[in-house]
């Protein structure tokens, strides 16, 4: 069977891009999560939509599971081939097909790495705001399938706000076109949105048209130091209420800031309980006014100190510090459970207060890092999977965090998706009719459930 499948796949894509050795399969068994792993039976790297179509037809006829994959940087178990079968990896579909400076759009293949795209746009003075902090690795297909976001999303919105058109290969092998290259489009249902954030369960994305904006002319970065995390959280709400929307507002707690200072000494105030990193951008005049207003609000909200970066180099230093946050968190223990809850932005301080209570009650230290301007935090708990008892308790503490977020009107996942990691909680976080509708849509588009099976909702519901 395996040999036959390999031969059939090789007929479609050619030799050398169908991987079956145990060594290669091992390297497609994981993603960015700490604990999920499963081996596929075969990995295939197509280069055209036509090849993807034939692969899916073959898989559909034989009811073989297919897990689409970009760079495997997701942190929800999304690209793990939990049922074995085929991993369909898009990393060789990496051509930027078009950058249109007059229409302010770009069309790309799904395997284009976000940073390669950013560099190509920068050459033409263009800007694509969604900036998941994995931009050096993640593919644009992966960001669409996860509807990823990042620091810039406070002002500019997440991936879905930029997707104008998609080409998607359905489980049947049909290559379907959705949306187009216009900013406005009222032709029927917003089906392109159905596939945006679908985590590879509805179809394989083979082409993406994105909206662009001109590169903002100026920006200013500020760093505010707080002696109390809750006060820091409240400052975020105060800024938004004051009438300015900064480009980014990021939150770093004492634990992470000390870890970063250890990793890359840069003179951070290691006694601070929280840091807010804020950027204002736009025209030079507007940036001046907004920055002043932000600084005033921060001071009024109880910041111990507010630093405004003198120049681009100092600003870059602060943002580099922020991007080290992920490594600082994940390097801190054997197993790190980092979550992705989002709460309404006016509830941030209250949520941070609740996290403090949970930490005290469960005895687990909780670190805070996140896109505060979106109310999206990544509270992390440090444990060790091999210590069963501790791990189970850590998971319980995690559940309490979810409950706290939900009780404030928040959501389970702000940007990382449900995948395998959070499906246990989905029932509690969704209207049951809506959940059912989702499963029906899945069955309609993929009746044999070959596309990324076992993801998003718990299996027994099917």
């Amino acid at each position, binding site marked *: 069977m395996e040999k036959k499948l390999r031969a059939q796949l090789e007929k479609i894509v050619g030799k050398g891009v169908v991987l079956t050795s145990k*060594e290669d399969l091992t390297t497609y068994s994981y993603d*960015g999560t*700490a604990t999920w792993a499963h081996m596929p039976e075969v990995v295939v*790297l197509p280069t055209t939509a036509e090849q993807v179509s034939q692969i899916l037809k073959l898989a559909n006829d034989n009811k073989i599971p297919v897990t689409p994959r970009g760079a495997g940087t997701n942190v929800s178990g999304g690209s793990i081939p939990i049922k074995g079968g085929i991993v369909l990896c898009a990393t060789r579909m990496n051509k930027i097909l078009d950058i249109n400076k007059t229409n302010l759009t770009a069309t790309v293949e799904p395997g284009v790495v976000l940073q390669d795209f950013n560099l190509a746009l920068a050459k033409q003075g263009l800007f694509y705001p969604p900036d998941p902090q994995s931009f*050096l690795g993640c593919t644009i297909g992966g960001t669409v399938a996860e509807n990823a976001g990042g620091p810039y999303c406070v002002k500019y919105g997440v991936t879905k706000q930029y997707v104008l058109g998609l080409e998607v290969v359905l489980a049947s092998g049909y290559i379907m076109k959705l949306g187009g290259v216009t900013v406005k489009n009222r032709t029927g249902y917003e089906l392109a949105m159905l596939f945006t954030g679908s985590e590879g369960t509805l179809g394989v994305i083979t082409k993406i048209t994105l909206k662009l904006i001109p590169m903002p002319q100026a920006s200013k970065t500020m760093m505010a130091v707080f002696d109390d995390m809750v006060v820091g959280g409240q400052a975020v709400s105060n800024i938004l209420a004051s009438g300015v929307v900064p480009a980014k507002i990021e939150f770093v707690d004492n634990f992470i800031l000390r870890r970063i200072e250890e990793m890359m000494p840069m003179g951070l105030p290691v006694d601070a309980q929280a840091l807010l990193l804020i950027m204002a951008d736009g025209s030079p005049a507007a940036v001046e006014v907004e920055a002043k207003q932000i600084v005033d609000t921060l001071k009024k909200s109880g910041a111990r100190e507010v630093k405004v970066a003198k120049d681009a180099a100092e600003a870059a230093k602060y943002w580099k510090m922020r991007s080290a946050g992920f490594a600082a968190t994940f390097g801190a223990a054997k197993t790190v459970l980092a979550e992705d809850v989002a709460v309404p932005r006016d509830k941030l301080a209250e949520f941070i207060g609740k996290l403090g209570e949970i930490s005290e009650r469960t005895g687990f230290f909780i670190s805070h890092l996140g896109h505060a301007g979106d109310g999206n935090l990544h509270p992390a708990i440090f444990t060790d999977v091999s210590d069963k008892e501790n791990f189970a308790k850590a998971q319980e503490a995690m559940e309490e965090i979810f409950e706290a977020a939900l009780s404030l009107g928040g959501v389970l996942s702000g940007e990382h998706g449900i995948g395998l990691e959070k499906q246990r909680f989905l029932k509690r976080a969704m209207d049951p009719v809506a959940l059912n509708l989702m499963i029906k849509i899945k069955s309609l588009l993929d009746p044999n459930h070959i596309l990324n099976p076992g993801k998003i909702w718990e299996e027994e519901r099917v």
Partner: protein
Amino acid sequence: MALTADRFEQIKRFEKDLSQCMKCGFCTFWCPVYQEERIEASVARGKNMMIRGLLAGELDYTQEYADRLNKCTLCMTCTANCPAKANIPNVIVAARADAVKARGLNFPYNIVYRWLLPRRRLFGWVVRFASWFQGVFMPKTEGTIRHLSMFLSALGKGRNIPQIAPRFLRQMVPVVNVPPASVKTRMRVGYFSGCMTDFVLPHLGKHIIDFLTRNGVEVVVPREQGCCGAPVFLGAGDFEAGRKMADANVKAFEGLDYVISDCATCTSALKDYAKFLADTPQRKKAYEKFAKKVKDISEFLIDVLDLPASAYKPSAVAKGKKVSWHDPCHLSRHLGITSQPRQVIKSISGVEYVEMPNADRCCGMAGAFSMHYYDLSKEIGDKKAASIKSTGADIVVSSCPGCEIQLIDSLLRNKVPVKVMHIMELLE
């Protein structure tokens, strides 16, 4: 002790690096091998996960495993940019060593690495023997470059390689080279002549020795020195043979305060003895002491010798020319030497320096890597050739004969008429 010797003795020494990787995948952006292949086994994250698989008993020493581990230039770009500061190349070298210990080396590398490379004189004879055949049987190619047969033909597969020199360096210079009578002797150093300088580019070695003596440095070229061991312990993971070579070199330079090298790979390999090969406290001490003495030639000129501006006169070929610098991985990322060579070039009167884009990007040579994976090596080299072309430079210099071979080959293939030289050839 021997009975309980661990199967993963070397890997375990780098357990911290092994476990530090958090699988973020950022290395995919930097890895020259991944950039060509775009498969997970190319890159640090994938290789590290395979090694974890081996430790967990899920993978074994198969041909595929060896192949995936060999497909790495050890350029360290992944490490330089890793947010978790995981040094996966360390783990890869260690894993190669454990594999060799468990399974041995394949023919012909077992003969070459274990037997031939440690015997410098015999090695010289074999190379010489090969050069006769090279002249007799192989067609000449452009310029002074020829296809090389036999022994070095492993490097060949159509690659343009400089020919074997008619006389080796050791036949051209005495052991002790003293400054001319008119010049005061400032210091005494040892000169490490890597295999390439000794057999292929002896005029370069002679030129460097002359430059140093003219500037008041007495240069000793110990005959007992041998290959640095890079292809043996870093490339093939043969630590046992590596130790023999290391011990010989340490001994050869005893009593000298500095060991000057014109080859980045040799320089970093000589300094790496302590990290990889120190199996006893004595060796550790000796290797660490030795490492401190080893200096790259530009580093020596700038940081130690501190010559007056008048010493930096251009050679005839360099006069009035536009020159660019390629950072060898073994110099820039392995040793952090980036400013000194640039300073040397900028100090030469009448030479214009121009920086190329991505000057520190791996050229794709990496010794045995390019013999095993010449096509891949070519693709990586093409990117370098494009960078060089974009500068409009007349000359590109480096400080690693290995890189220079790759640059010559890549530029010729891409029809870019830029001359490749060693940085010291810019100096009179």
